């Protein structure tokens, strides 16, 4: 009985494994990679220190500096990270990372974004970085998408006022529609958090941003692919509980 089980079970497992491998391969293919960008927090502290090259702006997969050291990055950002970048001002790649590392271990909490930090991280600087990036690279649309996604993220963060009933871990997903000028023309709740006040606060954050002007710098194909319709997932991690 046991023999038969292993005899039958093994091929099934092997097949399953092969399929999973295939799946991973498919998802890694560079052709559609930039679509899975999860533009989470660019580590503000690190960026503030050395905001010179666009490379630093590459969003980190997640802002939560959990003590887990090796977090799998979203697949989209991976190939970009390994690609050598012909930037005019090459900065040793390890530098910002190294600066970031001790921070992570020292502060296991989510760094709260103060308004000063946000202000320091100005739209102008980001836009400038974006331009140099756009100029330097034609093939790296993923990075442009990432940067614009990070800008949108910051813009929304700076306007998001959570109601006191909000709790860490609540999740609301909004579907956003833009026009090529960057104006928000549609906001709808794709998935409710179950808390109306929380959902409204998310909607208001986007509506109050109203326009993401950086989007207008995109080529039309890029705009259509990533920003005509996209989603914003609201999931607070910096609340008291």
């Amino acid at each position, binding site marked *: 009985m046991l023999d038969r089980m292993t005899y039958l079970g093994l091929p099934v497992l092997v097949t399953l494994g092969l399929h999973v491998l295939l*799946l991973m391969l498919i998802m890694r293919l560079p052709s559609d990679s930039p679509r899975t960008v999860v*533009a989470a927090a660019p580590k503000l502290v690190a960026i503030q220190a050395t905001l010179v090259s666009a490379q630093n702006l590459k969003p980190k997969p997640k802002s939560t500096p959990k003590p887990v050291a090796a977090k799998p990055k979203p697949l989209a950002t991976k190939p970009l990270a390994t690609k050598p970048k012909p930037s005019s001002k090459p900065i040793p790649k390890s530098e910002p990372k190294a600066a970031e590392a001790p921070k992570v271990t020292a502060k296991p909490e989510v760094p709260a974004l103060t308004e000063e930090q946000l202000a320091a991280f100005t739209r102008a600087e980001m836009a400038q970085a974006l331009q140099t990036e756009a100029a330097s690279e034609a093939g790296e649309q993923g990075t442009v998408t990432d940067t614009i996604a990070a800008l949108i993220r910051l813009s929304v*963060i*700076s*306007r998001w006022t959570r*109601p006191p009933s909000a709790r860490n871990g609540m999740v609301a997903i909004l579907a956003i529609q833009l026009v090529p000028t960057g104006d928000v023309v549609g906001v709808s709740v794709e998935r409710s958090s179950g*808390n109306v006040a929380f959902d409204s606060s998310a909607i208001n954050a986007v509506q109050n941003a109203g326009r993401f002007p950086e989007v207008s710098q995109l080529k039309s194909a890029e705009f259509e692919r990533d920003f005509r319709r996209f989603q*914003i997932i609201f999931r607070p*991690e910096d609340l008291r509980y």
Partner: protein
Amino acid sequence: MHRRIKQPALYALRFFIVLLSLLSGLSHAQLRIEVNQGVDNPTPIAVVPFAWQGGGTIPEDIAQILESDLVRSGQFAPVSRRDMLSYPSRGSDIYFRDWRAINSDYVLIGRVFEGPEIRIEYQLFDTTRQIEITAGSFSGAAQEIRMLSHRVADAIYEKLTGIPGAFATRLLYVSVTRNPTGKDFYRLVLSDSDGARPIVLFEGRDPILSPSWSPDGNEIAYVSFETSRPAIYRQNLRTGAREQLTNFKGLNNSPVWSPDGNSMAMVLSKDGNPDLYLMNLASRELTRLTRHYAIDTEPTWMPDGKALLFTSDRGGRPQIYRYELLTGKITRVTFEGTYNARARVAQDGRNVALVHQSGGQYHIAVHDLVTRKLTVLTATSLDESPSIAPNGSVVVYATKRDSVGILSAVAVDGGVRFSLPARDGNVQEPAWSPYIYQ
């Protein structure tokens, strides 16, 4: 045999996996931006002066009451009336673009009708989505117009924040005035939650201490020294009936009603030093809860009525302990710092407001029973007697300004602090009522 069954199953599985990979490819095609932080600035709201449909002038500026309620919560920033381009009182008169132009997320308008009763109608609009979010009305006696306004504020607050408002509630406090003759005069005062409309419930030359509320908000208990030694009294707010509950030798202190209203925890020293006792209010039967040579005092109920928190120096310094009524088990709750006392538990059973000493100064702090984290809320130095609003959002406490006792309040999230108007004298020992309207 098995193989013949498995084979099609495998095909199905394979098909399923391919389908899944296709689907996941589709769903991943859309960009998704994750937002996991916010700045939590107060939400701008325009409270437009309410239209008065009656004779003479409006008896109270209702919009002003609503506005200051919302501002005191710390979650809202008012739009100045001078910036308003119009004072609409009907939904059809609202031009959303005007309100967007002055960065108001919400507009609250309303009308007040005079009749045998006063009726307040209100409508709340979201200017970004350009929709009416909520509308309603409250009516009542003309002299209750302030309370009616607070009830409107409660409704608005709940709609916008997801938690009930606690504006239509009351405060109990003790005010002490020193007569020119040098003798102190004590008053037990009842006011609205914003400090307005103070009424003296009881007064005299003898000290009044530890006022507290029955869970239904109809009765209060306190300690009075009128018989020259402390005794616990209960008083019905509706009938005015007053009754002495204890008259023991030594301390009779800190009466607190159980959440079911049937019993009262208190501190008595009749058997030696101060310990916690439980009185059955129907039979007047006393049960001794703690028995320790240290001082056990300042009991407060957990909202489920199954445990009490209290202050004890059994560990050498005053700290908060927990007493389980079923088992009599006592556990220490606070460990941060050398002094934590006078706990009050929020209705969520999680946040505990207390007095915390650090650097020789007494601050109001909140201890989270789940994370066991202590957060200091106040920066003043002589803060005491915290009491939590029934919705858990604000802590009212007594403090000193220019060596005069005043009432202040602070949001539990530490956001906003404000002082309540005190008419005269030193104000002490505030006690926030439970919900009165439900």
